[in-house]
């Protein structure tokens, strides 16, 4: 199971990549494997505001429906529209091509408080 060291993680199986005052958000390799083949992604809209822990997107596989929660509070500044036609990217490339949205973060210290890869590894072990 791939678990990049430079990313932060949540207990809900999202990954967060800090990039200036923004974060990229996606789901972990563990999450995509547990979900199975992903067939639909419901994306947020650019300009949506989100608070940490609120549902911002929806991922559906052949077997289940899962909410994606905002790892931090902020505003959605871009979304990965490639997932609308090719949601299977979430399975094949969860940490790169499978990014879901980009959030402009209200409070950057909230990012530091997320899990590091070791803590997330311990969680899913």
């Amino acid at each position, binding site marked *: 199971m791939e678990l990049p060291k430079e990313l932060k993680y949540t207990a809900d199986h999202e990954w967060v990549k800090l990039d200036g005052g923004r974060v990229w958000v996606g789901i972990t390799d563990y999450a995509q494997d547990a979900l*199975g*083949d992903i*067939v*639909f992604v*419901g994306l947020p809209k650019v300009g949506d505001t989100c608070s940490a822990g609120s549902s911002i997107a929806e991922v*559906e596989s*052949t*077997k289940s*429906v899962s909410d994606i929660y905002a790892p931090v509070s902020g505003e959605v500044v871009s979304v990965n529209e490639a997932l*609308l036609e090719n*949601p*299977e990217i979430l*399975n094949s490339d969860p940490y790169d091509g499978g990014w879901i949205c980009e959030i402009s973060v209200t409070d950057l210290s909230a990012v530091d408080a997320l899990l590091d890869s070791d803590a997330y590894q311990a969680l899913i072990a």
Partner: protein
Amino acid sequence: MTAKTTALFETHRQLGAKLTDFGGWEMPLSYPSGTIAEHLACRRGAAVFDVSHLGTVVVEGSGARDRVQAALTNNIDKVAPGRAQYTHLLDPNDASVIDDIIVVWVAEERFFVMPNASNTENVIGVLGGTDITRNRSVLALQGPSAMGIAASFDPTIAEMKRFRVQEFRFGGEDGHVSTTGYTGEQGVEFSVPNSVAPQLFGELIERGAIPAGLGARDTLRLEAGLPLHGHELGPGITPYEAGLGWVVDLSKPEFRGRDALLHQEQSGRRYSLVGVMASSRQPLRADMELRRPEGELVGRVSSGNFSPMLGVGIGLAFVTSPVAVHDYLEVGQGKNVRRVEVVDLPFVSKAYAKT
């Protein structure tokens, strides 16, 4: 209760299958290639499924034919030894479909009655017979290439029409092969002793079949418009209400549940089964409510998912008021309302000719 496992359990683990509980059996949900790839392999080439969790009850000896005829809705005299028939077992109180069953007429007074995993006890209670479920394995080989692969083991299989059964010898053991399945594709189901099942499964893969799990089995049967017990069949649903009136032969003077069925028909059908198709990839899901655009609740989705062949969400649904093909209905509420269209079943045309 510990989950039951099939003779192929170790094989599935070695192939990296994800396992799931199904009716008390620990079965492969998918292999590393994933449900969609397995589904498409079955539509375009061949897939092999371990379906050993299905029950097999042997009903044999003097009077076996009469017992089958008196218990089940279809008319066994429409077929003959060497053939198989789809049929129902009804609740005598209200004509609910207790189970849907394949009866394989192996020899004159010898039948393999194949119920769903969880209903084997019910069937033995009604028909008698011997449960041989744990002694044999059933491998379903399905898809446009399935008959060719099967014939590479025994050339006479190529000549079999649909819903036929004959003996099948493999690895020095005696078994059977029937031209049946649950995918809407051509194919066969092998029933062989457990001792040779891993070898047969392995050889089917070597000859081009992709191992497929219950996830693909469900999306395939849904595209083919085939019912699943517990969703389209079960308590409170008669064969007519499930759109399966052809399974019932009322010209038979007696079968279990016949009186209750006639009584229910007199008071009127409560619902009918239809297909609905979404306009986007988002799957439909069981229990979603269906409404007319003006708000009237008309039914509920009984099974739903994503159709890998059509690229959109599809569902089977029971409706309580009449709808017509091409009618538009809605699922969801508020900003999540989605339009679905009533469509003809099956969603994906059956690949085989009617026989």
